[in-house]
C-alpha cells in the first residue's frame, strides 16, 4: 500500500447534505478531512444580466427571486441602492414597515435554519418541530404582504402595502398591532423550548460542541459576515455599524456568545446560540418598531409613471448594504441619465464571504460533521453563485482573474475593430 492513504469524496453537486447544487471536493484520510475545495458554479442563473434589460421597478420582483428565503433582503438592498443612486428618500413609516418585515423574516430564516441543522445531524424530530412553528411567522408575513415567500412589498421610495388596518388600532397601547403581538408572544413562549432543545439536548451538544471551529482571527482574515463570525466574537453587524431603514432609532446590541455567559468559541454550538438569541432580538426590535412607528404615507412617490421618469433622469451609483439573516449583503446599482434600464447591477450575498470560512472549519473534522458544518454558515447558493469556466472537451476547470479578463477584452476589441485602431 502506498503511504498516502487519502481518497477523494465529492459532496455535490446534488447531495442530501446540500439543499442547492454546489460541490465541495473532500480529501479524506479514513474518516478525517484533510482538504476541502469548494466548487461553486452549478446554480448561476444570470439574474443580474436579466435585470440590466428592464426598468428599475420591474427589477424589484426579479431581485426578490434571487433567493427563496431571504427574498426581503434582496428587495431591500436593491431598492435602497436605487434610492441611493437616484436621491429618493423613503418615508419614515416605510422605513419602519421595512424594518418589521426584515425582522420577521429573520425569525423565519433562523427557525428554518435550526430545523435544517437538526436534520443534518439526523434529528428529524426537531426538523418537524421547528418547521411547524415556522408556519406562524409565515402566516403573519402572508397577512401583512399577501404572500408567504416572495412578498413583493418593496418599491422605490417606500413600501407598496401598509400593515393592514385590521391589525391596526389608533391608540398607542402595547396591544396596538394585536396580530403581530400575538405572533411575537407565541415565539417568546416557545423560545424556552427551542433553547432547551438546541442548547441543552445532550445528543445535539455532542454533535455541535467543538465542531467546525472558526477562531476570531480566521473570521477577521477571511472577511466572514453575520452570525458565522459573531459566534467567534467578532462585533460585526450592519444594523449597528451603518444603520439603515429604522435601525438608527432602535436600541440593539451585537449578539455574541460572551454577552450571554458563553465562550466565543466559533463552533457550531455558538453559531446556533447566536441565531437563537437573534430570534429574541428580532422580537424585541419589532416591539420597538410597533411602539415608535409614525403615522404617515407609506410611499414617497405613489405615481409610478412619475417615479419611472425620475429614475430615467437619474444618473449615478448606489449601494444597498444590509444585515441579512445570514450576514452582511450588498447590491450595487448604476443608473445612467436617459437610459430606462439599469446600467449596471451587482449582487454580493453573504454566502460569498462565508464560503471562504469553510476551509478552516472543515479541516481535521470527520465525514459525519460535513453536513452540519456545511449548514452552519446557512449557505444560500442561489444568492451567491458565480460562473465557473469549464472546458467541455477536457473537463478542465479554469478561472480568470481581473487582468486576464481585461486582456481578453482588449484582444476582442482589437479583433473587431481590426486596423481601425
Amino acid at each position, binding site marked *: 500500500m502506498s503511504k498516502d492513504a487519502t*481518497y*477523494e*469524496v*465529492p459532496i455535490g453537486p446534488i*447531495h*442530501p*447534505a446540500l439543499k442547492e447544487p454546489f460541490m465541495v471536493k473532500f480529501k*479524506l484520510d*479514513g*474518516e478525517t478531512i484533510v482538504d476541502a475545495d469548494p466548487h461553486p458554479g452549478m446554480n448561476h442563473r444570470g439574474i443580474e444580466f436579466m435585470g440590466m434589460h428592464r426598468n428599475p421597478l420591474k427589477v424589484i420582483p426579479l431581485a426578490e427571486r434571487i433567493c427563496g428565503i431571504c427574498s426581503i433582503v434582496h428587495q431591500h438592498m436593491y431598492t435602497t441602492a436605487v434610492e441611493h443612486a437616484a436621491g429618493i428618500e423613503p418615508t419614515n413609516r416605510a422605513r419602519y414597515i421595512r424594518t418589521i418585515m426584515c425582522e420577521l423574516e429573520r425569525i423565519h430564516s433562523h427557525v428554518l435554519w435550526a430545523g435544517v441543522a*437538526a*436534520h*443534518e*445531524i*439526523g*434529528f*428529524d*424530530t426537531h426538523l*418537524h*418541530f421547528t418547521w*411547524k412553528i415556522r408556519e406562524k411567522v409565515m402566516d403573519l408575513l402572508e397577512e401583512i404582504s399577501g404572500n408567504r415567500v416572495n412578498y413583493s412589498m418593496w418599491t422605490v421610495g417606500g413600501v407598496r402595502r401598509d400593515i393592514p388596518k385590521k391589525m391596526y388600532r389608533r391608540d398607542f397601547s402595547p396591544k396596538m398591532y394585536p396580530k403581530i403581538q400575538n405572533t411575537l408572544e407565541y415565539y417568546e413562549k416557545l423560545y424556552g423550548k427551542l433553547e432547551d432543545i438546541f442548547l441543552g*439536548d445532550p*445528543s*445535539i451538544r*455532542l*454533535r455541535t460542541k467543538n465542531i467546525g471551529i472558526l477562531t476570531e482571527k480566521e473570521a477577521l482574515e477571511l472577511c466572514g459576515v453575520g452570525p458565522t463570525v459573531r459566534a467567534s466574537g467578532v462585533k460585526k453587524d450592519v444594523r449597528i455599524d451603518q444603520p439603515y431603514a429604522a435601525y438608527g432609532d432602535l436600541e440593539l446590541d451585537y449578539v455574541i456568545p460572551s454577552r450571554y455567559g458563553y465562550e466565543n468559541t466559533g463552533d457550531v454550538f455558538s453559531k446556533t446560540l447566536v441565531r437563537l438569541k437573534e430570534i429574541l432580538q428580532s422580537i424585541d426590535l419589532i416591539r420597538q418598531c410597533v411602539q415608535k412607528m409614525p403615522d404617515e404615507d407609506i410611499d414617497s412617490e405613489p405615481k409610478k409613471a412619475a417615479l419611472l421618469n425620475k429614475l430615467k433622469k437619474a444618473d449615478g451609483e448606489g449601494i444597498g448594504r444590509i444585515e441579512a439573516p445570514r450576514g452582511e449583503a450588498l447590491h450595487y446599482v448604476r443608473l445612467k441619465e436617459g437610459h430606462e434600464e439599469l446600467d449596471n447591477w451587482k449582487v454580493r450575498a453573504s454566502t460569498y464571504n462565508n464560503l471562504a470560512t469553510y476551509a478552516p472549519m472543515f479541516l481535521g473534522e*470527520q*465525514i*459525519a*460533521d*460535513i*453536513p452540519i458544518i456545511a449548514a452552519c454558515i446557512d449557505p444560500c447558493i442561489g444568492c451567491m453563485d458565480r460562473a465557473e469556466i469549464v472546458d467541455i472537451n477536457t473537463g478542465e476547470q479554469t478561472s480568470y482573474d481581473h487582468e486576464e479578463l481585461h486582456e481578453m477584452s482588449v484582444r476582442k476589441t482589437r479583433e473587431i475593430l481590426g486596423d481601425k485602431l
Partner: protein
Amino acid sequence: MNLEELIISLFYVLIIPFIGIFLGLLYKGFDRKITAMMQSRIGPPWRQPFRDIRKLFMKETIIPDGAVPWLFNAAPVIALIAPLIALAYLPIGPLGPIMEGFGDLILILYLLAIPAVAMAVGGLSSGSPYATVGAQRELVLMMSYEFPLAIAAVTIAWRFETFSLGVISSTPVWWLVGPVGTLGLILVALALFTVLPGELSRVPFDQAEAETELAEGLFVEYSGRNLGLFYLAEAVKMVVVGTLMIALFFPQNLTNWVTIGGPEIFGIIIGDLVGNVAFFLLKLLAVIFVSVSVVRVAVARFQIDKASYFYWVPMTLIGLLGTLLVWIEGVIL
C-alpha cells in the same frame, strides 16, 4: 424422525419465512406511523412498506459499471436469507424453535452478524466512495455492538447452563434469580436494548446509511429488486432481533396468567393459542416501539467514533456489571 414430524417441520420451514416477512413489513409500517405521530406528522399508512416492496420489485435493477456484479447481486440475497434462517431457530410466541436441537443461541448470534457483513460486502463491491465509507462504518459498528450482545447472551445462557433457546424460553429468567440477580438482569437487558437500534441501523446508529452524510451510504448504488431484498432483510431482521430479545428476557405466555379455553384440535387449545400469539405480537410491538421508534425520535445521529465508544465502554461495562451481579448471586449468595 418419522414422516409425520418431517412433514410438519417442512410445513413450518416453508411457512415461517413468509410470516417473518409479513410481520417485518407490518411492524415497519407501524414503526413509521408511530414515529410520524410522535413527530407531529401524519405519516404514511401502515401498509406503505408493502407498497414500497411491490414498487421496488417492479423497478429496473441497475448494476453500476464499477461494481463486481456477482458479489453485488449476491449480497442482498445473503442478507435476506440469514435472518430468515435465524427465524427457524427462534421460539415464536407459544411455538418452540422449529429447528430445536439443530442449533442454539450461538448459531443465532452468527446468523445475525451475516446481514451486516453482506451489506458491507455489497457496499464495497458497488465501487462507490459513499458506499465504501458506509461499509467501513457498518463493520466498525458491528464490531462494537457484538460485545454487549455477546455479554447478554452469555449471561442468560450461563444462568440456564445451556445455549438452547427452547429451554431458555420455557422459563422466564427472572424467576430463577433473587433481588440482586434481578438488578443484574435489568442492566443486561438495558445493554441489549441499546444493541437493537445498532443491529437494525436506525438513528442514532444509522451511520452506515446516514442520509445527510453519505446519501444512504451502503445502498447508494442499489436499486430495484436488490434494494427491495435489502429492505426485506431489514424488516425480517427487526422481527428476529425483537424475537430474540423476547425469548431471552420476556418469554412469558398469556397462559401463564389467564386461560381462554375454546375448542381443542390435535391437543392444542385454540383459544389459548390465539391468545398467546396475540400476546407475542404485542410484546414484539412493544420491544420495537421502545428500542426503535422512541429512540429514533429522541436522539441525533452519533459520529461513528462516539457510537463505537458508546458500545465498547459504557454499554459493555453496564453489561459486565449486570453479569457480575448475576454471578455473585448464583455463586456466592
